[in-house]
């Protein structure tokens, strides 16, 4: 999935993830945790963790790039294709953005065309193990060519919208899309 031996401009490889928990570490009660799909969709959906484990359909190795300049190479990601979740939700015409909400009240926003990219993933496992709490258990988003702040951890809601709305870092000036190969760090 990643260009062999090359990093996006301005990035350097480090051995492992730096753990960011800008709004603290949320507690997770997996028995009551749900992933809700809402907004401008034809079908509102709710998934349990068990549902998503059964739906696991994608596995690949790809690098992770943080906007602060570090990258972790060759991470193994496993989970459910976001495109599959999108197809089940049947977004209405003219949906342009996807707003992602997390258990810690973190939010981010992704262009619809990137959310449905074939590489976009709802991650359940990383490097062969279920996500740790620090890494976003039970689920996080991953879009390989967008900076890591788009890879929201502890995801609980996905909202399809026609109107743009800033997420947490976007409200602080970070880019609406965040493509690593175009160095879209700030607006």
């Amino acid at each position, binding site marked *: 999935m990643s260009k062999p031996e090359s990093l996006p401009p301005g990035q350097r490889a*480090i*051995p492992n993830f730096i*753990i960011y928990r800008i709004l603290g570490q949320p507690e997770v009660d997996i028995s009551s945790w749900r992933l809700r799909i809402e907004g401008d969709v034809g079908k509102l959906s709710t998934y349990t963790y068990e549902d998503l484990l059964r739906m696991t359909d994608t596995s690949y190795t790809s690098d992770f790039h943080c906007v602060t300049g*570090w990258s972790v190479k060759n991470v193994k990601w496993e989970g459910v294709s976001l495109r599959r979740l999108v197809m089940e939700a049947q977004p209405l015409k003219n949906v342009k953005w996807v707003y992602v909400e997390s258990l810690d009240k973190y939010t981010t926003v992704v262009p619809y065309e990137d959310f449905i990219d074939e590489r976009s993933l709802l991650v359940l496992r990383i490097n062969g193990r279920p996500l740790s709490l*620090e890494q976003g258990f039970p689920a996080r988003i991953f879009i390989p060519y967008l900076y890591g702040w788009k890879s929201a951890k502890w995801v609980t809601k996905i909202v399809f919208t026609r109107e743009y709305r800033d997420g947490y870092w976007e409200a602080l000036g970070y880019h609406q899309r965040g493509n690593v190969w175009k160095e879209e760090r700030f607006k």
Partner: protein
Amino acid sequence: MECWVSSPEALAPKGIKYVLTCIHEPKNIFFIEELHEHASVITDSLSKALNLRDLKIMFSDNEVIGTDYILYSYKVFYRGDYVGTCRFVTYNNKLIKSLCTISRGVVLE
């Protein structure tokens, strides 16, 4: 693993009274859960070295130093109060050093 306690004057201005330094054979640490296990072992060493029971340790944050080192910080609590920090140094995902600082306010048992 070899650990020892010191009280460096250089850290007194920061309110630090004790430093536990542990040296061990480099250990592969790839998953954060493996580091949590090591942190528990270090907490036991700290507890014995300072004769403090009821120590708890909790992951706080980590940071990259250069391109090959990552420093993981854990907060240390004694009977519910924050009393210090443990820092674990990894080099290319190999744990090479563990170091804990305990503040002046702690009264040893």
